């Protein structure tokens, strides 16, 4: 792994890093990936992960939930007329 790999991962993860932080993360990543690499040696043959995925349904009836609109909207960094306001994206 090289600095540019850390930069591209940080870019994907939307994290701003300083040069020093990048260097620190590079050596940490090398050490962690060096450790987890040992699973390359494990023989899994044709073991397929059995995802026990199933849908969790409920009847289509309204159930009261205790949400506080004021608590939610009060934490918006920016808002207008009770709506969350964000910078334009186009």
């Amino acid at each position, binding site marked *: 792994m090289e600095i540019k790999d*850390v930069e591209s*991962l*940080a870019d*994907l*993860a*939307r*994290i*701003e*890093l300083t040069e020093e*932080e990048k260097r*620190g*993360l590079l050596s*940490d*990543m090398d*050490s*962690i*990936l060096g*450790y*987890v*690499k*040992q*699973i*390359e*040696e*494990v023989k*899994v043959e044709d*073991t*397929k*992960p*059995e995802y026990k995925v199933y849908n*969790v349904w*409920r009847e289509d009836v309204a159930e009261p*939930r*205790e*949400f*506080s609109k004021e*608590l*939610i909207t*009060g*934490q*918006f*960094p*920016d808002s207008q007329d009770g709506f*969350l306001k*964000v*910078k*334009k*994206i186009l």
Partner: protein
Amino acid sequence: MIDLTTLTIARARKKLDAKEFSAVELTQAYLDEIKKKNKELNAYLEVYDDVLDQAKKADELIASGESHPLLGIPLAIKDVILIKGRKVSAASKILENYVASYDATVISKLKKQGVIFLGRTNTDEFAMGGSTENSAYGVTKNPYDTRRVAGGSSGGSVVAVAANLALGALGSDTGGSVREPAAFCGIVGFKPTYGRMSRHGLIAMGSSLDCIGQIAKTTEDAKIIYDAINGYDVLDSTSIKDTTYPKASLKKVIGVPWDLVNGEGVNSEVKENFKESIKKLETLGFKIKDIHIQNLDTALATYYIIMPAESSTNLARFDGVRYGLHKDGKNLLEDYKLTKGAGFGKEVRRRILIGAYVLSAGYYDAYYGKAQAVREILKKEFAKAFADVDMIATPTAPFVAWKIGEKSDPVSVYLADIFTITANMVGVPAVSIPSGFSKVEGKDLPLGIQFMAPHGGENLLFEVGKKFEEMR
């Protein structure tokens, strides 16, 4: 004066019902202790300002003849579990001023019993770590030796109970975060079967691994908290029912993976103490069986692929748009980058980047895909092992609590999870029970023994825990 050192939830219940002391008096005793000790130990990030009001209400209920196992009992809550209208920060700067807009399911269950919430406790940021050294609000210190870590990530909750700053506590356990600190601080840490506790209102780390855990002085107390908060919840799609797993019958056989216990990296005093514990179990009438679990030694490496992958996905939501920290940039993308850069600490960034890496197109099969297959093998191996044994015993941690700042390489901290992570990977319940002390530099440092039971086998753990405690 109430003697908090010998007080348990079970005893306090009797005394509260017999009016030997009131909930207000009990709560005041804890507030006094917190005032004396919390500055040094840093167990609580916040002590709520309405604690005595909560206690008054509990007293009124007691006076009216109501009784619940946890009515008027002061508990501490890890700073990753939502209580409506109160701050919850996950010990992170990115959620520094976040106020929960609803109650976690476990919290509403505790409220129904009339629990007193003392405050929120310190943890590694987003529960990522084994020492609380990764908290954005300072490390929690071990009450047995304040130069040492308390363990983590539920270090604050554990220290609150161990140092008599709360009667019991809730933590969360993704890879050992309740059990390891409990072992380091000489108390009981319980992690139920995956899905037994609703995760609704628990700030997510690794969603296929996360479990809310009970922290208490005794197994009996842990069970009282467990009984109050477990159960199916429609708000958690991975929640299980009582009928999900078959009831296990006791064969009185305990399996020990000696090859892992005797492996290098496990401290010799830990091994000695564990062997003594095994002798005690034999005196209790348990047969000990040497078991070999294929790939147990690579479980930790597998965990450190799956967990960061899930964490990095879960933490993507903290972007400064709807709540929490917001740093303003020139455009939306810059807002994201600046907010996450300023809000996330070192370990959290590491895990986000590792997660992004193992999930990226070129590496997905080699890391994440492979790790899922290894996890599957582990599950099968455990099922095979539990055909012959009731429980599997190991030390809880391979060494005692380390000195604050001593471990600078992240992998050396990860190794503390070697015995605990498998229970999360497989989804089985596990408990850490105090098993004695190791004298290090003139201080007695606690050690723990861990028991794992098959899915749904919590009753076996409560049973063996109680018997083991009676032998002490």
